[in-house]
């Protein structure tokens, strides 16, 4: 998802009766549904895992502005441009809520930014794909933000208070993102045959990367079992992916678009859609840094940070000078 393949440092899951002392009391609080707050005792693994997960989530929001930012100056109408600007501004806001939540765990903002820029920290694989046409902006809102909502709604109930509260704010705003995307798709699908073909082409390119966003099956993963025990992962990757497929197929049918999967069909017995095999080699390749846009995305972030350094420093120097003057005036 926005956080993929999060490492927990656990090699084996220990049951409650194998824990003692602080660790046992901590697990009992989580099992009882009591939120963990920044100053509470927590296992080092929980703290580190959350820093990895929340910062990866934050980085995804920030890098996620780039594919859509690509179309702000080329939006088809002033109304679409204003909406897209507001949407991209929301993504920045989501990144900021999440960075703040991660900082309550004792990591600094600068450290997190450095880790992103050095490649040590990841962001979601989905943002390494290019936005080739205006229809991609529709497909991103509809499918990428749609997948994000499926993942983020359970996180509003996760065990770490600041993360859960940030997710509540994010989810309230995310619904606008998905709807504006679907609205773009509807306009294209009701337009000329060329416009409808653009919409179909965007769906063809974004469908499989969106299914990959949820990450590989984690039914057997120790990391996922540990995150589930800690209450920071509430559903498996496969469960969330199935939910996304089930809710999206009827929406595609409404648009008159075809999902690019010949194996996709309703399974009456299961009450879910069956879908074809995902090419995980592509996912791992993108995660390793070899997707279509990995280098561009990271370069855009590093350039923005480095070219803005003099300005950030100047503002701080100004604030320090003003503070000194007011101290001198008071003396």
């Amino acid at each position, binding site marked *: 998802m926005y956080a993929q393949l999060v490492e927990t440092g656990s090699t084996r899951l220990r049951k409650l009766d194998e824990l003692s002392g602080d660790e046992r009391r901590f697990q009992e609080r989580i099992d009882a549904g009591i939120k963990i707050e920044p100053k509470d005792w927590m296992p080092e693994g929980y703290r580190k895992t959350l820093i990895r997960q929340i910062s990866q989530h934050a980085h995804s929001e920030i890098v996620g502005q780039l594919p859509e930012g690509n179309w702000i100056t080329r939006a088809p109408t002033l109304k679409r441009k204003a909406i897209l600007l507001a949407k991209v501004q929301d993504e920045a806001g989501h990144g900021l809520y999440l960075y*703040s939540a991660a900082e309550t765990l004792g990591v600094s903002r600068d450290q997190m930014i450095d880790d992103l820029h050095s490649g040590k920290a990841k962001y979601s694989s989905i943002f390494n794909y290019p936005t080739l046409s205006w229809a991609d902006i529709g497909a991103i809102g509809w499918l990428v933000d749609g997948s994000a909502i499926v993942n983020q709604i359970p996180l509003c109930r996760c065990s770490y208070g600041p993360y859960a509260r940030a997710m509540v704010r994010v989810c309230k705003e995310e619904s606008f993102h998905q709807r504006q995307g679907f609205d773009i798709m509807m306009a294209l699908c009701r337009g000329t045959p060329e416009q409808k073909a653009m919409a179909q082409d965007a769906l063809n390119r974004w469908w499989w990367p969106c299914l990959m966003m949820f990450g590989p099956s984690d039914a057997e993963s120790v990391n996922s079992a540990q995150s589930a025990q800690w209450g920071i992962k509430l559903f498996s990757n496969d469960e969330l992916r199935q939910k996304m497929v089930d809710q999206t197929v009827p929406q595609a049918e409404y648009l008159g678009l075809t999902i690019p999967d010949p194996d996709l069909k309703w399974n009456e017995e299961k009450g879910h859609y069956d879908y074809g095999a995902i090419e995980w080699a592509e996912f791992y390749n993108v995660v390793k840094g070899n997707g279509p846009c990995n280098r561009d995305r990271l370069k855009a972030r590093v350039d923005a940070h480095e070219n803005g350094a003099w300005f950030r420093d100047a503002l701080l120097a100004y604030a320090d000078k003003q503070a000194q003057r007011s101290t001198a005036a008071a003396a």
Partner: protein
Amino acid sequence: MKKEWPLWEVFIRSQHGLAHKHVGSLHASDAEMAINHARDVYTRRNEGVSIWVVRSADVVASSPDEKAPLFEPANSKVYRHPTFFPMPEEIKHI
């Protein structure tokens, strides 16, 4: 020069006459910028009519380790709640 802008806690009063409520935090070089950033980050959908910002370093908080002794005195005083006093069925408006 490599120095992080200080952290500020943000409090917003909504339109419904409630008290300022903590909504999150942000980095800013000074108080004026903190207010401007708070507007952009926390009130994009008319969430507030007033913003307070305070440097996070200036917040004094109770310690979670002392939670039990700090809040213990209230635990034994259930009579502070109106439900402590059962009222007869026929008594109204009380």
